[in-house]
């Protein structure tokens, strides 16, 4: 465990991202103070942040709070507080951390979080979210709207699915008009959808830059830092500016032939959320092998854009519905996730797949053994399966995790060396 952390790419966009997020937290603090702007609690996955723009409202993301706490090593206290009131050891720790914070008045930044104007449960595939937001509403007394997004059980959503979601989106608009006492600004909504499609285009280009070797950024660890703005500012001009700058900076790196690591040794695809309480430790375990993630499923929870989908200002409601139904990893079925990873491995030219099982999230984790089976036995792709949690520090076993990761890359190393021997012979 004595290895030096290998330093990875830190560009100016990382600082810009911090500023943007701080700015957002300040707005939330202001909202807590004055009730303005109105805020809406939402789930990251398949979020319809564009709709909020039509009211000049801003989103609150309990997940973001939870992960910020974990990354700052502050998650255990609220988790224990929630367990004291009866939440089970095996309940999602995101929920426990979030509820615990509400009870203890803890926030990641120390600033305050407002009581949401509306708790909008856009649960896409995550049944835990239905409970989570029901509890948030019960504890805060805020009004709850459950936007029932049919799970994607076939390749594409049916017209019935789309109509159903569109109808509900319009019901949400109606309810928000009552709650906020302001008319829905359709043009502003459409403008926001237009910004989103721009951002999505830039983001998609960034994702594709990882096809270069060396990859200019880590599509797991670095992608996560870029995800904040993606969810909070996607429908805004600031978002467009930020991602234009990001794309620019990363393109420069590609031109200069710079990568995350001076000599990129391994390219992997990562499935599953990271262990936020040990984010740095975990990253260093890959850094010590100069292993870069060229793609990750976790960076597509909020939306899956690298395969072409964009919001469409010509049909704003339909495209928002489409995004919620079919263009985020959590509402797509398990086999579609297999296929997404398969494409990453092949088109992004990866050496193997890392599956990180997190006990909190059964949406991600239930069945990952079968996923592993598909990749190792059916496709012959080297796959590593490790377990911990995304929020609860009590489930990260450093020695075991490092041991498995080292063993995995030792075997990849061996495979490469024998391969070169073969070539040499």
């Amino acid at each position: 465990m004595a290895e030096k952390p290998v330093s990875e790419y830190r560009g100016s966009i990382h600082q810009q991202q911090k500023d943007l997020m701080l700015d957002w937290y300040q707005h939330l603090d202001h909202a807590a103070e004055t009730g303005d702007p109105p805020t809406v609690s939402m789930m990251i996955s398949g979020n319809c942040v564009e709709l909020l723009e039509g009211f000049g409202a801003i989103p609150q993301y309990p997940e973001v709070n939870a992960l910020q706490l974990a990354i700052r090593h502050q998650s255990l206290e609220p988790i224990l507080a929630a367990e004291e009131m009866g939440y089970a050891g095996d309940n999602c720790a995101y929920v426990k951390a979030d509820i615990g914070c509400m009870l203890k008045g803890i926030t990641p930044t120390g600033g305050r979080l407002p009581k949401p104007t509306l708790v909008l449960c856009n649960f896409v595939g995550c049944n835990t979210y239905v409970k989570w937001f029901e509890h948030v509403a019960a504890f805060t007394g805020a009004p709850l709207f459950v936007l029932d997004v049919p799970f994607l059980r076939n390749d594409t959503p049916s017209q019935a699915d789309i109509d159903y979601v569109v109808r509900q989106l319009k019901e949400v608009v109606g309810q928000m008009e009552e709650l906020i006492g302001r008319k829905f600004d359709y043009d502003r909504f459409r403008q926001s959808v237009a910004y989103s499609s721009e951002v999505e285009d830039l983001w998609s280009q960034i994702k594709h830059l990882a096809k270069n070797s060396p990859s200019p950024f880590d599509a797991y660890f670095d992608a996560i830092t870029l995800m904040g703005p993606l969810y909070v500012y996607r429908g805004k001009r600031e978002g467009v500016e930020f991602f234009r700058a990001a794309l620019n900076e990363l393109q420069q790196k590609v031109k200069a032939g710079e990568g995350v690591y001076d000599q990129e040794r391994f390219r992997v695809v990562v499935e599953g959320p990271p262990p936020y309480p040990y984010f740095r430790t975990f990253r260093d375990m890959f850094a010590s092998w100069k292993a870069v993630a060229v793609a990750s499923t976790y960076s597509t929870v909020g939306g899956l854009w690298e395969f072409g989908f964009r919001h469409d200002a010509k049909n704003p409601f339909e495209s928002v519905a489409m995004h919620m139904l079919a263009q985020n990893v959590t509402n797509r079925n398990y086999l579609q996730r297999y296929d997404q990873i398969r494409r990453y491995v092949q088109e992004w030219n990866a050496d193997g797949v890392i599956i990180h099982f997190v006990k909190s999230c059964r949406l991600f984790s239930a069945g990952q053994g079968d996923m592993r089976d598909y990749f190792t036995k059916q496709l012959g792709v080297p796959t590593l399966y490790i377990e911990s949690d995304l929020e609860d520090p009590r489930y990260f076993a450093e020695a075991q995790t490092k041991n498995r990761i080292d063993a995995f890359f030792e075997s990849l190393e061996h495979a490469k060396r024998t391969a070169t021997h073969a070539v040499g012979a």
Partner: protein
Amino acid sequence: MTYVTSLPPAQGDYYFMKEFERTFDSLYEGMQDLSFAGVRRWKELHPGAKSVAFFPVYAPVELVHAAGMLPVLLSGAGDRLDIQHADSRFGSFICSIIKTTMEMAMTRHLEPFDGLLFSSICDSARNLCFVIKRNYPQMYVDFLHLPHSTSDSSVEFLEQEYHRIIIELERLGGAPIQPAALRHSIALYNIQRSLVRKLYELRAQSPHLLRAWESYVLIRSGNFMPVEEHIEILKQALDYLPTRPGKKRDAIRVVIEGAFCEQPPLELIRLLENAGCDVVEDDLAIAQRWFTDDVPLSGDAVHALAESYVHRSVYSSVRHDFSKPRWEGLAEKVRSTRAEAVILLIAKFCEPAYFDFVLFKKKVDEMGLPHLLLEFEEKLFTFDRLRTEVETFVESLVFD
């Protein structure tokens, strides 16, 4: 599975009594049988007919029945199948019923079935659906999205969803589902559900006439035989039970809540009773009491089913009506059965139940009722731990 139908209908006579007492055990064997001999027998009797199994909790069995198929509940393998393969597909912290169901598939125990139906109860069950779909492509495996909301658009959506399922069933069965047939099926299941409701009423009124494990067996066994047969059994039970000898005992009236999907071993239900609890309400057979009222036979049958689900289904931890909180539903149960305590019986790793526990507990505390949280797994062989907790709970209520 024709247990009781072979009996003389003469009520109250000794022979009938003896026979009926025995049926509890034979029914139990029937529902425990992992070779699904009953299903195989049914298929032999109905050449070419298909059987569709459904994962808990609720499924529109009427559609399956109307398609001339036998709907069967997948309720895990309990303690009757050792896991020797499934851990390779489903990791830690996943509930047992998911793993035993996967194990059943991997050991060819699901062969009697031509189709599997899953629904939107939880993330683990949902993923299981698609894992099985990948591994058994020859089988019809479908996922039913049951709305988590009760708006009119939800009814409209579910109606469409049912039509989608109907098309799949018709493809599987090779014949269209006739509206008349569907109405007939709905009528049958209405009868079954009303009889089940009566049985629960009887037990709540006089628990000494019907032990919890007996009503459990009587009702859940209906998931493994044609509904027509089950209706006969229920009728005879309702005729016989009031005349059954048995005396009231000094016990605490409890409501059991939380075991709506994975099932506790029968031994555990017996244990509760032996420790001094009279179970006057439970959600162990919730799927057979799904609608608070009959599904209307007038108008469009598919619409009637969808509308009944959205507006007239009973609460459960996996069925949400945000205008009527589930904990209020629990409170109603407690009041209507004059229960003195609540036992929250939760399957290990059952996240929906874990979450509801928090708000159920809050409500029960407000009502000033004692409660006990018991965690179980379908696979249990020793019960000392649980027995100690249940007995302590009872002792804390009876000892002065």
